[in-house]
């Protein structure tokens, strides 16, 4: 085995200092005495010790820069370094969002051009760059649907949002936040939306449908035009979850499929780093029919200057402070320009090729392919831990833990919910064929070992900075610790 992660025994910051953190008394004119603070328990350490602390911690973390990170639906592709350098200019860092707009023409131009690019890539009419993440975009999109329905005076009747059972959890959560009732539509034996079931649930109560294309099994909804039609015919709106757009850039556009609202995840499709969980960015693109509901502000150009437009009477309004996760947006713009139209199409094709190649290399005795056998996958695919392994008590979690022991990241596990013991794998286009082959080899080796010595896989990982986590202790009310204080009272 070639991987061994650092195992620093690195204390918490507050354990590095035993000093009392009582603050110096202050008496300032104009400061109400009853509001003066006396104590803050934040340690006072030297820069040397602090830098070492975080550098040691960084060595106990794994990112795309260290190896393949094929979390399905998360699109962990390589993040071009030049994009990081482009945003590290004082010309952006020191720019206040409330400055007069004539002093912000540079950034407004970049944002305007990015919005144009996203509109072209999705086939939509207009784009808002404001949402901070994909789920935020979903909430915005479902609020737009709500506003459109309200406008037609149908808010009392159209309360149902149709969502396939294979959808990301954010879809039902977002729609529920926007006040909709969720109607689940099952997948058919091919892993696609069951058209007959869909026909049965649509009607006057239908607000719309939220669809991820390709879906979370990595399958393109081949009946997409029919699905869109069925929903539109009953007066519903169509929402495209762009989490998986990485399969389709330059090949086919959600707008051309007939979708009204589309959100994108710039941190997935357009290569901005995931930051250990964020910041992301989730622009929302809208068709001509619903663009008037987009959140404010939009960025406009009058032929002479760029400006923020707030005067949009039908807009759902403000959805966050200021205008978006700006530096993320600039990185995504740079990425789009680096690739260009042909490069984006190539990226998608290569992502799909890598995914199908990886699937073709897996030992199907151990990894079973649910739904649509033989149908090409798109940028990701799902396998379930096979019968042979399950009989030995081996779970998807075990396979994941064994994978990280090889210095590669695990796929998304236990998702989608319609597949038992699921492994959802998305290699992305930035992995070379050799890397894909190596990942397949590791997966097959783990399966073989798991079959012959299941205890080994159930005990994994061994080479990471800590062994398998005691999740029960972490979540038990008596042992749960949520901050560095003694948390008896929690």
């Amino acid at each position, binding site marked *: 085995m070639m991987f061994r992660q650092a195992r620093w025994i690195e204390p*918490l910051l507050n354990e590095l200092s035993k000093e009392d953190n009582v*603050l110096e008394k202050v008496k*300032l004119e104009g400061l109400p005495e009853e*509001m*003066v603070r006396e104590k803050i328990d934040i340690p*006072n350490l030297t820069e040397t010790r602090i830098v070492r602390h*975080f550098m040691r911690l*960084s060595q106990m973390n*794994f990112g795309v*820069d*260290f190896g393949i990170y094929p979390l399905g639906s998360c699109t962990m592709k390589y*993040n*071009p370094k*030049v994009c990081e350098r*482009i945003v590290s200019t004082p010309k*952006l860092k020191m*720019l*206040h969002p*409330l400055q007069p707009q004539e002093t912000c023409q*540079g950034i407004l*131009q970049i944002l305007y051009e990015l919005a144009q690019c996203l509109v072209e890539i999705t086939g939509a009419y207009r784009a808002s760059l404001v949402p*901070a993440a*994909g*789920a935020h975009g979903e909430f915005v999109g479902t609020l737009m649907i*709500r506003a459109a329905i309200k406008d037609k005076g149908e808010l009392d009747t159209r309360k149902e949002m149709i969502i396939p059972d294979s959808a990301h959890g*954010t879809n*039902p959560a977002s729609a*529920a936040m926007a*006040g909709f009732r*969720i109607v689940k539509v099952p997948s058919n034996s091919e892993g696609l939306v069951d058209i007959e079931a869909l026909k049965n649930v649509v009607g006057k109560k239908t607000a719309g449908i939220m669809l991820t294309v390709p879906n979370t099994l990595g399958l393109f909804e*081949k009946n*997409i035009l029919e699905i869109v039609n069925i929903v539109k015919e009953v007066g519903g709106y169509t929402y495209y979850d762009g989490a998986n757009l990485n399969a389709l850039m*330059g090949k086919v*556009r959600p707008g051309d499929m007939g979708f009204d609202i589309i959100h994108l995840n710039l941190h997935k499709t357009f290569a901005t*780093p995931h930051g250990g*969980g*964020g910041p992301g960015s989730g622009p929302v693109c809208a068709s001509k029919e619903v663009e008037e509901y987009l959140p404010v502000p939009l960025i406009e150009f009058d032929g002479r200057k760029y400006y923020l437009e707030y005067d949009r009477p039908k807009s759902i309004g403000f959805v*966050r402070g200021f205008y978006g*996760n*700006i*530096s*993320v947006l600039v990185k995504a713009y740079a990425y789009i320009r*680096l690739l*260009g139209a042909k*490069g*984006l199409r190539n*990226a998608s094709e*290569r992502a799909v090729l890598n995914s*199908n*190649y990886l699937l073709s290399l897996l030992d199907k005795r151990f990894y079973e392919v649910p739904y649509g056998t033989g149908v*090409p996958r798109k940028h990701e695919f799902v396998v379930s831990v096979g019968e042979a392994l399950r009989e030995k008590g081996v779970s998807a979690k075990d396979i994941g833990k064994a994978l990280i022991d090889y210095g590669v990241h695990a796929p998304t596990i236990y998702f989608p919910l319609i597949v038992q013991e699921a492994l959802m794998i998305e290699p992305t*286009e930035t992995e070379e064929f050799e890397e894909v082959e190596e990942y397949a080899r590791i997966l097959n080796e783990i399966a073989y070992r798991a079959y012959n010595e299941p205890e080994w896989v159930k005990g994994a990982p061994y080479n990471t900075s*800590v*062994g398998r*986590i005691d999740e029960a*202790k972490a979540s038990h009310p008596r042992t749960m610790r*949520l901050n560095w*204080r003694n948390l008896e*009272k*929690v």
Partner: protein
Amino acid sequence: MVEFFKNYSREKLEKVLEKIGVKDVEDLYSDVPDSIKIRGELNLPEALNEMEIEKYVGRILEKNMVHNEVLTFLGAGLPLHYVPAAVESIVSRSEFYTAYTPYQPEISQGILQTLFEYQSMVCELTGMDVANSSMYDWATGAAEALRMALRVKGKRKVLVGENIGPERKNVIRTYLEPIECDILEVSYDDVSGRIDLGDLERKVKDASALYIENPNFFGIIEKDVAKMAEIIHREGGVFIVGVDPISLGLLKAPGEYGADIVVGEGQSLGGWLNFGGPSLGIFACRGDMTLVRQMPGRIIGMTTDLSGERRAFTMVLQTREQHIRREQATSNICSNEALMAVAAVVYLALLGSKGLRRLATEIFEKAHYACKRLSEVKNVMAPYFSGEFYQEFTLKIVGEDVNRVFSRMVEKKIIPGLVLTKYFPKLDNMLLSCFTEVHSIDDIERLVEAFKEVMI
């Protein structure tokens, strides 16, 4: 242009295709209806190489006028603070920034411990017991806090201060619209600029929550907060306070005066302005499990590995979250602002409690010096409100149009503050100016001189 097939000979590609069982990449798209397939290429601007894109974006961003090219006294929810070099050094470690949410905790202890320490620091600063590992920003944090209070209390009415930031007020309206509840504004006192307790008493009945900001949007310290807590608690409501985290180096923690939930903007903890984002939503609450179970966002907990010997960290209380609870989740939030939380914890560690006290004190003194100097300028009324302030204060221009004064200041390469009329129509001819450690005494004198010149 990036070419994803460049490293491969035709032979390798053919071997791959053969293994998959197709003749051409296009065959992998055979299930896409022909009628909607793109013929040709997308109509995008031409591709640029790495050097060209850097030059191109650089040239456009050059048009921005940023702080110091134009001396800026804007705060209004996002005051400019200095970012120590060590913060940038650590957040640019690609172990952190090229990772994702720690779904595999054993290989992600670095970010997990860091976020746990971030949560701990937020608890120390705010006086709360449980913090999440970030929201998108202050405004969405405040809105989610109110939704949380509505879930816990169930009475469809909430109160917000009239003197909170307009950004927050607007986002709260959008977020609460689907809930169909009443959002009532508690007026501020026209003289002091503080929340009017009498108005709070009049409106508090049946309210699920009260949201105020401290300092409030006018920069004024709300000192009757203990009383407010008492009033809203008497009605069984939740007391939510929005803060500027750096002010907590000097001002009492909301936990000390009865807050149940604290939110705030953490971007200024180790993040540059960046035209307003990436931001960092601070979110923390009391350790009351009925509250904690309704919290939005990721929470990191401390545990051990199964050997029981090594301390370890992992995501906890996930049954609140969308990937498990779906439409029953407390929030839809998934991606958050984790890297900004990393910046924040490094920043707070570098300052320590003493540095934070010094910084907040320096800011307080700078703002008060500026106020005193500006009050000496003819026809400038500073501060306009009588309430004690922290780093920001309102000033009224007498006998001159504020917009004209503002334009002439900009010509002199000074942005003196925010013109308030657009946000608070009744505050005619007024500015909101903000002072922090980035402003030198010379900068303040330049502002004063400029006022004197344009006010003639």
